[in-house]
């Protein structure tokens, strides 16, 4: 038997030492106030991957792993793991002596329950990440054996506290996880304990004195403030009321200005696992976007470079396929696909519409629709205003609709009461984790956020997606994803706009906040504030 074995404890210590390797010694104590924007609908990271939840919940819940900035696995609740030769059995050795914030011990039963009963059932991406997991055996309290139907190497990239938070079985068992008290009163094993959530103002987490990493966290408290107004957020950063704002909390225009000031820095680190993509979702079951031609025309009529330059101040890269160019490292990205111009091609768009027999009425209008927008800030509103202007010349007349986060999520993902929706998705480190959920028929899951809201269903594509998920050979896998991208560039149930580059703005006194590949979605256990 040839096991790929890897002992975590030593590496963990090494990782800690590396983190501590910076020139100054860490100061313990202090409160970190950071921006959480917008206010999260709940703190149930096991139910929703909505961005603001990710800014808070991973500080409370641990995953089996964390990841360093080069995407290497760093042990968290799992001390080590083993993958069998055939790739169908993955054994996790769990950390002993870890307790939940309420004092109950953490065991393998929690892992089994979390994956089988929660993540596989109600998490937006869990059914994909754990699609091959048939059962989990718990031979003892600190061993969890995942039995897979097929090898699933991508699963090991989806075990962070953000992506797959381990939740307490004793508090959720026998309840519907969708309606549990845990959503607003989370209990985890993480570095910080949930203390208080004052609606409309802040969420406060206090240091977990019994955290399993000795001597950590350094901070006594972290407070996530909700500041709805963008310029107020910038002002709060400037006068040090807050020290950290990620995921565009500080608008790019101000980030660029703060970057040039003393005492503040801007980084694009901490987003390597996220791979964000701005995009348009269409309701493919309703007129007018039930025809592929009109969706293609939308893609052709949008000037992606204009969006990046004028709304995101140069941070971003035009999308050229269903997959981000970041997947070229693994050979999965396919270049040279049609319908993805960097600059608008109005003539081509009109030609597509004319060829499909979508003609203009007396006012030059071919289709009318309401555009919904992700309510995550001013930039998106500008993008919506731009879209309205950009689609008018090809005869698509849009009305804009702005709603708050819960209403919008319900409209798009539960009621399907939308026609065209501007949004962004995380493509994550593997397409199985981040991209399949857009397109698979099995991802039409009413009520689950950030999945196939287009209700696009194509058996040929489903077969390719299934093959792509299981294929171990890199060349074959690349070919499969090539075909997938070709189909999607024609059908376009989702039109990708541009690969986003998020900015994190921080006060220079804040140290070691980017030690995890998850950045702002990381556990923040090693963050400290210089006096």
């Amino acid at each position, binding site marked *: 038997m040839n096991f790929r074995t890897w002992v975590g404890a030593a590496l963990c210590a090494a990782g800690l030492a590396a983190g501590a390797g910076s020139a100054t010694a860490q100061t313990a104590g202090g409160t970190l106030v950071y921006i959480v924007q917008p206010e999260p609908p709940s703190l149930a990271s096991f139910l929703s991957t909505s961005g603001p939840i990710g800014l808070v919940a991973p500080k409370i819940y641990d995953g089996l792993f964390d990841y360093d900035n080069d995407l290497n696995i760093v042990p968290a609740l799992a001390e080590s793991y083993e993958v069998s030769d055939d790739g169908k059995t993955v054994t996790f050795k769990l950390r002993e002596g870890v307790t939940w914030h309420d004092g109950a011990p953490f065991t393998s039963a929690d892992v089994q329950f979390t994956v089988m009963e929660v993540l596989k059932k109600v998490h937006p991406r869990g059914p994909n990440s754990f699609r091959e997991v048939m059962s989990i055996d718990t031979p003892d309290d600190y061993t969890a054996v995942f039995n897979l139907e097929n090898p699933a190497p991508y699963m090991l990239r989806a075990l962070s506290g953000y992506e797959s938070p381990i939740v307490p079985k004793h508090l959720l068992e026998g309840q519907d996880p969708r309606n549990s008290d845990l959503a607003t009163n989370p209990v985890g094993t993480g570095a910080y304990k949930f203390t208080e959530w004052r609606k409309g103002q802040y969420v406060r987490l206090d240091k977990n004195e019994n955290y399993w990493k000795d001597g950590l966290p350094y901070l006594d408290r972290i407070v996530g403030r909700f500041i709805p107004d963008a310029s107020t957020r910038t002002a709060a950063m400037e006068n040090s009321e807050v020290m950290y704002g990620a995921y565009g909390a500080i608008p790019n225009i101000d980030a660029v200005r703060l970057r040039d000031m003393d005492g503040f820095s801007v980084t694009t680190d901490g987003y390597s696992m996220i791979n964000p993509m701005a995009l348009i979702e269409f309701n493919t079951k309703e007129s007018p976007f039930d025809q592929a031609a009109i969706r293609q025309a939308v893609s052709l009529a949008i000037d992606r470079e204009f969006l990046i330059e*004028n709304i995101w101040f140069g941070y971003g890269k035009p999308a050229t396929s269903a997959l981000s160019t970041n997947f070229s490292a693994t050979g999965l990205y396919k270049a040279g696909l049609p319908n993805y111009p960097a600059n608008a091609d109005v003539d081509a768009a009109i030609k597509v519409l004319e060829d499909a027999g979508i003609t203009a009425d007396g006012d030059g209008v071919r289709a009318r629709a309401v555009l919904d927008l992700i309510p995550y800030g001013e930039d998106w509103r500008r993008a919506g*205003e*731009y879209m309205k202007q950009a689609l*008018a010349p090809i005869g698509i007349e849009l009305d804009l609709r702005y709603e708050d986060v819960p209403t919008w999520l319900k409209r798009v993902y539960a009621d399907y009461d939308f026609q065209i929706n501007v949004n962004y998705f995380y493509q994550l480190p593997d397409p199985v984790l981040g991209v399949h959920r857009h397109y698979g028929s099995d991802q039409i899951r009413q009520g689950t956020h950030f999945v196939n809201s287009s209700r696009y269903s194509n058996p040929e594509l489903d077969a390719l997606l299934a093959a792509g998920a299981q294929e171990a050979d890199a060349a074959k896998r690349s070919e499969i994803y090539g075909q997938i991208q070709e189909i999607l560039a024609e059908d376009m149930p989702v039109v990708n706009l541009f690969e986003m580059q998020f900015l994190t703005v921080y006060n220079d006194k804040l140290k070691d906040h980017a030690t995890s590949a998850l950045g702002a979605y990381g556990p923040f256990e090693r963050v400290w504030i210089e006096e």
Partner: protein
Amino acid sequence: MAFWKLFARNRGAVIGLVILVLITVMAATAGLFFPQDPFSLAGQPMSPPGENGFLLGSDSLGRDVAAGIAHGAKTSLLIGLLATLVAVFVGIVMGALAGYYGGFIDNLLMRLTEMFQTIPSFIFAILLVAIMKPSIESIVIAIAVVSWPAVARLVRGEFLSLRNREFVQACHTLGMSDLRIMLGEILPNCLSPVIVIGSLMVATAILIESGLAFLGLGDPNIMSWGFQIGAGRTLLRSAWWVCTFPGIAILLTVLAINLVGEGMNDALNPRLRERS
């Protein structure tokens, strides 16, 4: 004309009227001077005033600030007038009924009015618009709902004082119907203060609309000054012109309406006729 003479004695009021007329003309001719949709991406984004063919500069998407101001004038005046008309109408009905009949009806209507008055008006307007979804109708309704109580109280006071006057009693003796007395006899005698409060209310309505649009609760499909300021405020330090000019437009309009209102007060209020 006596009214004009009295009005023109207040020089501020005349200046206000001139500004107001200019703004109305601007709103009426917006389509002539700026035939394009004010949301259209007219050219180079973030152009300073006077450059790239933008009189007052362009915003982050290259929309013409001057076109936005001209078209926004239409929105602001329209919403101001409509909301005021609705508020004045509701206010007169409530106030007239309460003042004329007194007693139980008065009690009921005035408690209702007070209920509305105790809620801070701007916050109430935000709430209403958020519930009804931002659109021009919901904004007009919201502004009217928060504005009518002032009119109702005023009209009630006037009716209370007028209903026992001899000319009203004479009407009663002549057998006139209540409705006719209210509309034909009392109301014309208390219109002056209503006109004054109504004109000032237009200014408040414009401010509320701008405030709502600034907070992102304006109708996203209609250009307004508040929207321009809201969209430009993140750029304040790098493109001052995007918010500044619409801000000046709001300032001038509200000031002009207030001056005109003041002038009307002088002209219509007999007690102030001797004021210089």
